[in-house]
């Protein structure tokens, strides 16, 4: 199973916070009750014109897991998983996370972090995000996608710089 790691592009974020609403809604559905104490697992910080999206990066050697004293945070195949029952709300993980992507729900005294909504093919926050600042990232295929995209760009640039006629074996390649 592949973790639903969510890629973020803060530059594209418009600060509408639809993702936050979507996250809370789906958490309410999960618990099957109206709960005022639910905290969103994604945060939108900053002000116009620059916003910062903060969400768990599902690290592989996660510092939060190392910091967790009760073993509530666990490195699973699908990402870093938080056991809500064993979490004692000590806040060590929030201090360890370099992204600030895990925080405490003060009312419930438990940590809050994104679990990538393993029950959803596409997490609701991504569906809610209109400017496409949030995207689902296929684990381990990111670099491949980037390579392909940059290479395609590179062809266009070479053609733009040198003209389509000359971008060929004879002018650039020679006979090895």
């Amino acid at each position, binding site marked *: 199973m592949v973790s639903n790691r969510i890629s973020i592009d803060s530059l594209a974020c418009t600060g509408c916070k639809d993702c936050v609403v979507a996250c809370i809604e789906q958490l309410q559905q999960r618990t099957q009750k109206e709960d005022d104490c639910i905290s969103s697992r994604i945060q939108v910080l900053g002000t116009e014109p620059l916003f910062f999206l903060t969400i768990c990066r599902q690290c*592989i050697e996660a510092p939060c897991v190392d910091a967790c004293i009760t073993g509530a945070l666990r490195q699973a195949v699908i990402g870093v998983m938080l056991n809500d029952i064993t979490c004692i709300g000590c806040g060590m993980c929030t201090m360890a996370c370099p992204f600030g992507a895990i925080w405490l729900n003060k009312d419930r005294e438990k940590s809050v972090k994104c679990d990538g909504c393993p029950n959803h093919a596409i997490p609701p926050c991504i569906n809610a995000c209109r400017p496409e600042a949030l995207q689902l990232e296929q684990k381990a295929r*990111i670099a491949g996608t980037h390579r392909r995209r940059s290479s395609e760009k590179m062809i266009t640039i070479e053609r733009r710089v040198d003209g389509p006629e000359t971008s060929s074996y004879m002018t650039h390649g020679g006979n090895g």
Partner: protein
Amino acid sequence: MDEKVILANPFKCTGCRVCELVCSFKHEGMFVPSLSRIRIVKIHEMGFNNPISCLDCSRMPCVDACPTGACQVMKVDTALCIGCRECIAACPFGAMDFNPTTRVSYKCDLCEGDPECVKGCIPGALSYQVGSNQAKTKRRDRTTIRYELVREA
């Protein structure tokens, strides 16, 4: 910073992937192209092969993205890397990748100044040259143009 750099000429590259083999052999001790520091992208529709390794960008989005300081110039500090894969998402060329076994990111380290890929490249698409300042500037400019255009996309 080392003045020598790996220059890739995609129009000379035939896509044989020997560079991937020798690179992965040097770094992983076996033939595993998916963990090579240099990768060949094949755009079959155009018969285009593009060798991609770390271009040593001047703006270094991977270093900017790293929260722990593990990702450095031509090097990843494995002790500091937490496997968040932000550097991989940040690199517009896809020159960095993640090793699921050792659980750290990797990028080209120039083989301590003697790159195996260049030695293995018989078609001469890869070269390891003392970048005169001019050449380096030119390459940087080109990289920057590419970088901007890729960002546009």
